[in-house]
């Protein structure tokens, strides 16, 4: 305060004294000094107007809307996001005047209502007069305090190169797992002793669900438990399951949450008929252990890669559908804004999925916490703006392109397409003909009725005049026209049918959801506050500047930079990518990430519980050619993964209640999809076919879609407006945003669905029928035993068995099937069915 006061004193000694006294004094002195006159004007008119109309939103202490503060001279000098607000001496050049004059529909202040004319005049003359303003800054300006590029945040751990630790394994056995070295080190330091290994049955169930999303069969369970050496059997099972085609499905489904995979958009339920190809790309890629760095390049820029192998080319093209999967509002009328929204969605997903960065925050202003300036955002946005994803009309269209197909098939479709074109052309011509014929008929009819009217009035005067003869002729030509029109209508009908048939055939040509590079690619301007109609400086396309690479990467002349960006993300030099992916995979199996916020490695995210382990896993990933399977195998063979879910010792409960140190196993509940699949598996109805689309071909919109398939959940069309059974109730995440970790609620809706949902009843019915069919003896003891084997791969305890048998009492033969159905329904709804041990 002292500082400010003395500051003002040196600049305006007289004025301050005067101001402190009262305005009357000012007025009295007004003749002596022009500044005093101006000050008087300011205090009398301008300050009250500012206070009354502007400061509620534009003050340091309030919101500084649009980045503009008007509570100090400095405030309007610097201006808001759009630049200086006042140009002293030039009202017409001042944005403030522009805003309050209300002439520009996009810039009108105050937003509620235009100011009275006299107030507008006050501002106008104030600015014209040089905009005298005695007010000093009240607080250090927020404008200079961008966290953006501060060196502090660049030092953030996640931006540092991988520190590759070498675990000094006190090598006991060849199977010693490095993961356990790191985990145990922390446990020892904390003085916590780890829980013992989980029971063998529990380990196997865990392994099956984690690696395939399905339970083991009871026969398989029995076989493994009977093995002479469980350790050998477990390891063998790991290899078997990693080789199972269902492994690819299980991992793909996890990645689909991150990729916000869906097959429709919520708006009008428009359907992405070709999205399933991307899902199948994932199933296949994870199944074949495609290197993940390659998968990154393919998802971000597969269309720009090259391959002579047609299979590979297919995979590259389809992978890029990743960019086009957003829940876009194609109906948005401001198409420029729509395009930028589209790019924003892409950047948001790419940032979170691969880099663990919340890039989207920098759309409107420099990132408040991470070193991502707005400039970087628009450098990236330029890359994606150059990849056209929309064809505009009232409801814009996404882009699906024909897939490359073998030459002879190509020929077949070409012929069809030519035919279609011809038919369409002919149809148009005929329709035109019909329209003009109709017009002729219309005018003929009009002429005729005119004539008729004429002749009627004429007939009064000249009974047998010359008009009388023309009447029948006119009628003749009318019926002639009618015959012609009918023939034409018939022709049109035939052509329309032909066109429809051909279109259906042409539609069979496989297509894929994609984006198209625009030539030449363009740099774009910073959109101030994210507004497409308020542009700032143009920024050259580029990548995130906070991440320093040992080998700098650039964008070659003529290229959009998307391919280079894909390389930049997937290079081992990028300190974020391998860490983010290794952590993600870890979280899929251990229930929580080493960095808990799996999609956010920025300064607002969590810090790693085991930094060395994280860097070791990331470097192992890179060292093994980005093999996901290798990483998964390391994890599921570790003790950390295989521990029992134990009750904590009170001291441990205090030290590590959340199991951050992995001293015990993690509580795992089946996901919605796993629950559905497990029920179908138990009822014997599950169809384990792999890949392809099962969407009803005629599906035009996703509302009220009937999901009737018995395929695994991953193959149900994932419709944003009508999710398959159970998904809504069991925390299936909103497929509009990238989700790193699903939330897990325990609410009674779930209990209601398990008990009352018709789909669940049908599974119980089928399971009961299966038991009746497959059991050697029709006896509740046998049924109960088999049901426990099928549902939980174990025998019921004595208590459980007796509860089951009680349920059949009093025994009435005719009611037995019904009771059996209720019993197995109860088992499907019970806790052990959905909570693993």
């Amino acid at each position, binding site marked *: 305060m002292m500082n400010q006061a003395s500051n003002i004193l040196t600049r305006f000694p007289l004025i301050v004294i005067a101001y402190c006294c009262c305005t009357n004094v000012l007025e009295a002195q007004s003749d002596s000094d022009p500044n005093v006159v101006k000050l008087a004007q300011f205090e009398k008119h301008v300050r009250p107007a500012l206070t009354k109309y502007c400061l509620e939103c534009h003050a340091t202490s309030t919101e500084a809307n649009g980045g503009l503060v008007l509570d100090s001279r400095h405030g309007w000098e610097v201006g808001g996001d759009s630049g200086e607000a006042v140009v002293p001496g030039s009202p017409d050049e001042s944005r403030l005047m522009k805003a309050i004059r209300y002439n520009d529909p996009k810039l009108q202040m105050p937003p509620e209502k235009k100011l009275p004319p006299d107030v507008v005049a006050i501002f106008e003359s104030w600015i014209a007069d040089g905009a005298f303003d005695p007010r000093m800054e009240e607080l250090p300006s927020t404008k200079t305090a961008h966290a953006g590029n501060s060196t502090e945040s660049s030092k953030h751990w996640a931006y540092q190169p991988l520190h590759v630790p070498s675990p000094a394994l006190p090598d006991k056995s060849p199977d010693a797992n490095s993961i356990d070295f790191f985990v145990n080190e922390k446990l020892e330091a904390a003085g916590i002793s780890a829980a013992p290994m989980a029971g063998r049955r529990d380990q196997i169930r865990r392994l099956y669900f984690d690696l395939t999303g399905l339970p083991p069969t009871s026969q398989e369970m029995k076989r493994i438990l009977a093995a002479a050496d469980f350790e050998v059997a477990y390891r063998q099972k790991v290899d078997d399951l990693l080789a199972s085609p269902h492994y690819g499905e299980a991992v793909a489904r996890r990645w689909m949450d991150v990729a916000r995979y869906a097959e429709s958009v919520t708006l009008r339920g428009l359907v992405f008929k070709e999205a399933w190809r991307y899902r199948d790309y994932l199933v296949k890629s994870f199944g074949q252990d495609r290197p993940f760095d390659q998968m990154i390049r393919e998802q971000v820029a597969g269309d720009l890669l090259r391959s002579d192998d047609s299979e590979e080319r297919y995979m590259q093209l389809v992978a890029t559908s990743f960019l086009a999967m957003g829940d876009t509002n194609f109906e948005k009328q401001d198409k420029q804004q729509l395009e930028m929204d589209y790019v924003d969605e892409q950047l948001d997903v790419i940032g979170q999925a691969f880099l663990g960065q919340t890039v989207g925050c920098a759309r409107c202003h420099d990132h408040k916490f991470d070193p991502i300036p707005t400039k970087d955002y628009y450098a990236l946005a330029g890359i994606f703006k150059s990849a056209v994803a929309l064809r505009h009309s009232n409801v814009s269209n996404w882009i699906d392109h024909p897939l490359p197909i073998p030459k002879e098939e190509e020929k077949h479709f070409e012929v069809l397409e030519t035919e279609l074109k011809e038919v369409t052309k002919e149809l148009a011509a005929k329709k035109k003909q019909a329209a003009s014929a109709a017009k002729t008929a219309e005018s003929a009819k009009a002429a005729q009725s005119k004539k008729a009217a004429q002749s009627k009035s004429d007939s009064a005067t000249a009974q047998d005049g010359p008009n009388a003869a023309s009447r029948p002729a006119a009628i003749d030509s009318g019926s002639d026209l009618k015959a012609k029109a009918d023939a034409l209508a018939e022709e049109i009908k035939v052509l329309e049918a032909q066109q429809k048939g051909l279109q259906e055939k042409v539609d069979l040509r496989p297509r894929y959801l994609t984006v198209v590079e625009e030539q030449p690619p363009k740099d774009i301007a910073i959109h101030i506050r994210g507004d497409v109609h308020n542009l700032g400086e143009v920024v050259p396309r580029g990548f995130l500047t906070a991440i320093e690479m040992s080998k700098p990467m650039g964008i070659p002349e003529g290229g959009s930079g998307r391919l280079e960006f894909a390389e930049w993300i997937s290079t081992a030099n990028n300190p974020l990518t391998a860490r983010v992916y290794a952590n993600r995979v870890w979280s899929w199996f251990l229930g929580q990430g080493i960095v808990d916020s799996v999609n956010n490695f920025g300064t607002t995210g969590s810090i790693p519980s085991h930094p060395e382990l994280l860097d070791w896993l990331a470097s192992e990933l890179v060292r093994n050619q980005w093999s996901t399977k290798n990483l998964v195998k390391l994890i599921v063979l570790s003790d950390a993964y295989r521990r029992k879910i134990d009750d904590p010792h009170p001291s441990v409960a205090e030290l590590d209640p959340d199991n951050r140190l992995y001293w015990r196993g993690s509580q795992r509940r089946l996901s919605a999809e796993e629950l559905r699949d497990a029920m179908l598996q138990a009822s014997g109805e599950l169809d384990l076919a792999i890949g392809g689309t099962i969407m009803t071909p005629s599906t035009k919109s996703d509302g009220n879609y009937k999901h009737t398939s018995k395929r695994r959940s991953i193959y149900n069309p994932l419709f944003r407006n009508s999710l398959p059974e159970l998904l809504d109730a069991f925390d299936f995440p909103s497929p509009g945003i990238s989700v790193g970790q699903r939330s897990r609620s325990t609410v009674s809706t779930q209990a209601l669905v398990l008990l009352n949902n018709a789909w669940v009843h049908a599974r119980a019915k089928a399971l009961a029928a299966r038991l009746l069919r497959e059991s050697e003896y029709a006896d509740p003891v046998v049924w109960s035993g088999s049901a426990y084997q099928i549902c939980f791969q174990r025998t019921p305890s004595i208590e459980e068995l007796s509860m089951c048998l009680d349920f059949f009492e009093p025994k009435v033969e005719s009611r037995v099937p019904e009771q059996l159905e209720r019993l197995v329904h*109860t*088992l499907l709804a019970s806790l052990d069915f959905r909570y693993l041990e």
Partner: protein
Amino acid sequence: MFENSISRRQLLQQSACGFGAVAANAMLARTGLANSSSGIVGAHHGPKAKRIIFLFMFGGVSQVDSFDYKPILAERNGEVLTFNDARLLAKTGKQTEQKLLNTPWKFKQYGQSGRWVSELFPGMAEHVDDLCFLHGMHTEGVAHGPATLFLHCGSTNMTRPSIGSWVNYGLGSENENLPGFVSISPLGPGGARKYGAAFLPPKFQGTRLVSNKNDSFSIDSLTRNDVPISEVARQVELLQRLNRQQLAQRSSHDAELEAALASHELAWRMQQIAPAVLDCSTETTATQKLYGIDNPTTKDFGEKCLLARRLCESGVRFVEVNYGGDSGNWDQHSDLPKHADHARAVDRPIAGLLQDLKQRGLLEDTIVWWGGEFGRTPYSEGKGTGRDHNPGGFTVWVAGGGFKSGYAHGETDEFGFRGIEGRVHMHDLHATLLHQLGLDHKRLTYKHAGRDFRLTDVHGHVVHDIIS
């Protein structure tokens, strides 16, 4: 019917989080006290209202044909003037010439407040002294999709939680046996996002109430009708016995598992209590008549309005009643007279709802919010027989819940095109509605993707002028 040993902590852990939250007893849930483990924020300040009924007029009601009387349209009908038509402005950035279109309906003044209402809404007109009109509304998005999403989620495109989900997250349900947020017959563009929770935990999403084959409304899987209740009871008993046994056989005692056990118990209670709330047939003939249920024209919307009252009465925080779906909506581009059909379908039911809430003393702490995603232009479109969308100026009304009554805030220009006085942006309305519920729109935030999100983004001002 079941003994159990769930601790108070576990009960609290689940309480007030919406559909099926567990609470020790009704009183506990009715306190509305938030607790950290349930994820409910709790009120920031003393609330004026406890709940909201939102009557969503999908398609866009024309303000100049309903509540915003502009006699000049009759005087200058057919005159061509330059307008900033929102759609053409978005597409071309240019102003366009448009032909004024008079309203085919007569206006009259009503009530002590003397508000002008057209003959479209004779029923609502009788209640003008209870209503608070916002004539200077404006919003974002000029097509149904974007504007509907903006109305519900405060964003025209991005996936964001809906207002009902925010309220549910802010306050939870008042009744542990009912959801906190219900949407009756949600249809139209925006789809599931209109009641979606986006990045909020899914438990805060809206529960759909859709009419089933028997023409009554129900919650999915609430009951099963193919088995006598005694049989269900027997099965539930077996389930809980087995569940307890399973828990006893486990090596750990996990709070989540115990909560799951409790959720089954609550579900059992719910399926006995909730159907009664959803059953409007117990209402008297007089009440049914009040809502127009006796008349085929008003039956459908009347039932929805009555249901909304019953749900609110039972503690649901946010009920959205949707008008407009397969059977048509307010979107009269080329056939303005059809507005009358829609008006007939909703007017009596809404008037009945207001009267019923009032006589039950519920209007005091219930907000009734009426409006569409935007209004319509005072000039004609295409063949000159209808009106296009107008997000720049339209009318919305709110009633009850601490709002001024018999009051009008703001106004549009002489033609009813653009708000010029007391403009209220949709963000402002959202902020104000939350404010009345005791929630500060700037503090009702949820951390997602590295930052705090809120319904009003970085905008929104509470409109203090309309608060009594």
